């Protein structure tokens, strides 16, 4: 049962991300990317990491992808994108090398057979609690650093966008209210 589910998720993830990489249409790429993210959250559910699966759903499928799509709204989504291929051989070579390096990096622990779960699931402790414990003990410093980084990014974003923030976009305050001459005369 789990094997079937795993293969279904795996195949559909690969196909969907393949579409993301290969499609020339923005809409197809975006949709398949989002669907692929959903499929990845399926893996988390299969592994019993409900919390991480849901976080994957909310963060990647929800927030990040909505931002992507918001950016893509400025393109004409119905037209295909013409990619520039300056030197296809070089691109192929570099891409292939990168892929090879990644495969080697991630398969090295498997070959060395020294891969083990550092934080195995503890009975009686829920997913959210387990994540919280790890996050606030061992990974506290990276967590806080990430938080500070996000804060910096937020401030930078506000400064970039905030030059005219004191002026409302909609309720335009008319500085001088030039009264109708007829109105003036009638008084």
């Amino acid at each position, binding site marked *: 049962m789990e094997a079937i589910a795993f293969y279904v998720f795996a195949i559909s993830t690969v196909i969907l991300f393949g579409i993301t990489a290969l499609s020339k*249409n923005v*809409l*197809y790429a*975006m*949709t398949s990317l*989002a669907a692929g993210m*959903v499929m990845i959250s399926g893996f988390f*559910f299969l592994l019993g990491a*409900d*919390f991480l699966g*849901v*976080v994957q*759903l*909310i963060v990647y*499928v*929800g*927030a990040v*992808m*909505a*931002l992507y*799509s*918001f950016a*893509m*709204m400025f393109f004409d*989504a*119905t037209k295909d994108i013409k990619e520039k291929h300056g030197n296809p051989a070089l691109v192929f070579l570099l891409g292939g090398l990168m892929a090879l390096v990644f495969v080697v990096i991630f398969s090295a622990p498997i070959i060395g057979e020294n891969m083990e779960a550092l934080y195995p699931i503890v009975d009686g402790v*829920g*997913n*959210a609690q387990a994540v919280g414990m790890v996050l606030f003990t061992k990974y506290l410093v990276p967590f806080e650093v990430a938080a500070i980084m996000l804060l910096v990014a937020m401030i930078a974003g506000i400064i970039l966008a905030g030059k005219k923030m004191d002026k409302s*976009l*909609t309720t335009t305050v008319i500085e001088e209210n030039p009264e109708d001459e007829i109105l003036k005369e009638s008084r």
Partner: protein
Amino acid sequence: MDATILPEVTAAGVIIKAILILAVISAIAGFGTYIERKVLAFMQRRLGPQHVGPYGLLQLAADGIKLFTKEDIIPQHANKIIFMIAPIITAATAFIALAAVPVFPDFTIPFVDVYVPSIASDVNVGILFVLGMMAAGLYGPLLAGMAQSNKWGIIGSARTAVQFLSYEVVTGLSLLAPIMMVGSLSFVDFNNYQSDGTWLVVYQPVAFILFLIAGYAETNRTPFDLLEHEAEIVSGYVTEYSGMRWGMFFIGEYANMITIGVIASVVFLGGYNDFWIFPGWLMILGKIAFSFFFMLWVRAAWPHVRPDQLMWLCWKVLMPLAVINVVITGIVMMIG
């Protein structure tokens, strides 16, 4: 907490439950359109639909026949595949979200002895799952608007993105305070926490109001129905849709309304606990029905806001309020 041992949940039970949810909720969602038209009509001192069947009850069937037999138009320059998928996303995610929500009481089918649980899939992060699934449901409007190569559709999907980014923060933060109090993300735990008769809304009135506001934004109900506001952007993301594809958007929307009602009543309003002389199932049904009615009531009474007002409201008012609420809750829990 609960000493009664429940029978084992089998695959057959879950499948039966899923079919039950699909059948009943889509029927209720269809019926919801009738209720909405009727209640809105009464609030404007009109009669509403009344010619099909007694009191217009069969209007639902008439609408269904109309939607099913209507021509399924796909615009010439639309992105056909995405255009066809988008309504399915809305309807499907709405029902998937309902999988983790306690909908009907559990029961055992007599002769075949199959136990049908109250929740189809009792993930222990139920609330987050429902919220995540409803967030994923936003892809329906988003893709629909972008795929149809229509200016109104584009505006509709842009508003979807804006609205989504605005309310999602508030939804999460407003639910965080009750989650902290209960210490769990499971609906069952929320229900058991309130089994002594004190509803969580007593402790968390601010969170309740914030959640209601964000929930209305999530289901595109009237104060925040920017996505398809007829007076401004023809029909927004559904401008080019017709027939059953259009219908699927609305089944999804009404299913989401029911989901929000369930979350509000389980998390804040005491869940399916017995209350005084009323049994639990009646209480939960009554609460969901009232929450549905309240959505229609609000639609009849209040005007809708502009997109910039929604963003202003969510980011500048509701989010600070939610954060303050979470902080105060934390402090009180630490002291107490």
